[in-house]
């Protein structure tokens, strides 16, 4: 199978076969990461720009390592407040980077749809490293990869995503990914944080965490942004954790071999009790090396894919 996409903007646009191809390719990439010389010449001569408008050391570092392992020339561009204040638009910035020879642009932006603007106006391949509340494809592909590694097969699994779904790009991408690969997806959180009409994408909506956890194979916890309290979406962290926090006791409602995932960093005692946070350590570490492999696969496939020739 050939990867026809020029960009990876979101999991919504990808077919289940394309998602599987990325995951399969990531397995080969993971093997590269296990060698003494963790480098292949696949993207030699290709310039990849990491254009991060939001600070995110972890995602950016993961992309950068992935790029270097593929022998790409890497340029990190983190626009400062001042250059934004100077009035340079996103498009100006990206056009300049393209003029410098970038053929792949990895973009992280606080506003939903920003990568779409670049995909429409530029000739480079665009990889979305997270846009607003919209999508975070590399995180979701990593989650899918990790789950597939542990559970072998995603189809038929039950997953529940817990927390602020409304403001979560991780949730949106994972919903698409897990549904496309045949899992049953539930979401649970305070109704103020459940996006409207989400059930139309075949997601079951719960407001009670105990009901939602019943018999699930995977629990995906979202990070709670404390500023949502100020905008009146929930009354207090205490109340939130009482009704939506994951405790060992609640986790007992899930399947015995349940996996707990969290995109990190964790607010201990809010989304997760400390004991649950300690229990899930191994999965988090695994995610780091898997993250590099998945991003290598994404970069390799868009750079060699149908659109960029």
């Amino acid at each position, binding site marked *: *199978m*050939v990867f026809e996409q020029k960009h990876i903007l979101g999991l919504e646009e990808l077919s289940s076969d394309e998602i599987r*191809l990325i995951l*399969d*390719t990531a*397995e*080969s*990439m993971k*093997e*590269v990461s296990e*060698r*003494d*010389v963790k*480098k*292949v*010449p*696949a*993207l*030699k001569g290709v310039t990849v720009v990491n254009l991060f408008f939001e600070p995110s050391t972890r995602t950016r570092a993961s992309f950068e390592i992935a790029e270097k392992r*593929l022998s790409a020339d890497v340029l990190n561009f983190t626009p400062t407040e001042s250059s934004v204040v100077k009035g340079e638009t996103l498009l100006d910035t990206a056009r300049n980077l393209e003029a410098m020879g970038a053929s792949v642009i990895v973009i992280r932006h606080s506003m939903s749809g920003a990568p779409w603007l670049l995909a429409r106006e530029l000739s480079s391949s665009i990889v979305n490293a997270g846009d607003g509340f919209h999508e975070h494809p590399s995180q979701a592909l990593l989650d899918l990869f990790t789950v597939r590694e542990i559970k072998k097969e995603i189809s038929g699994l039950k997953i529940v995503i817990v927390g602020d779904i409304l403001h979560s790009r991780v949730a949106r991408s994972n919903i698409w990914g897990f549904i496309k690969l045949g899992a049953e997806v539930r979401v649970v959180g305070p109704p103020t944080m459940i996006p409207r009409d989400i059930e139309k994408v075949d997601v079951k909506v719960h407001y009670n965490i105990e009901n939602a956890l019943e018999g699930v194979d995977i629990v995906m916890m979202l990070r709670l942004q404390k500023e949502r309290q100020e905008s009146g979406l929930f009354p207090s962290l205490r109340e939130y954790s009482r009704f939506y926090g994951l405790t060992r006791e609640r986790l007992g409602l899930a399947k015995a071999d349940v996996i707990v995932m969290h995109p990190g960093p964790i607010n201990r005692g809010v989304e997760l009790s400390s004991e649950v946070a300690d229990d899930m350590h191994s999965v988090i570490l695994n995610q780091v090396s898997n993250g590099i492999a998945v991003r290598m*696969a994404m970069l*390799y496939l868009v*750079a*060699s*894919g*149908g659109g*960029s*020739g």
Partner: protein
Amino acid sequence: MDSETITRALSRIAHEILERNKGAKELRIIGIRTRGIHIARRLADKIQELEGIKPPLGTLDITLYRDDFRRKTDWPSVQKTEIAFSVEEKNVILVDDVLYTGRTTRAAIDAIMDYGRPDFIQLAVLVDRGGHRELPIQADYVGTRVMTVRTQKVEVLIKELDGRDEVIILQLGSPNEAR
């Protein structure tokens, strides 16, 4: 080549490998995807038959090492490389079905070097297509040599994949279809 000549050629190659490497002890056999894997396995089996030691067998996918990146549209998917042993100070036998331009071999050598520093890398091929080499590369062990023109295509059929063993030479319409 038919099934019988192929078996005989592989048997001869196995003897030559053992002779040149003074036994099977330091041997590591790595097949290049896809058909090289099966030829490598048969060589390893033959060596075991002759020496009583089965040399460790690996699988190499060279997609990430190709130098025609961005020129092909029908880019093959990246497959897994499986080399579960160290190549450090070993005698690595690279196995492929056909040696043609030499570019695949170049990519495979680069890949092996990323796994460590073998004492020797030697190349075994079932068919050596003469006259089209683009790099200074030659095979150490050859099943058969054929002189072909670019409008021809050498196809190696393998029992495990194609149901029978055979090497056939096809005439193509244009040089672009040749591989």
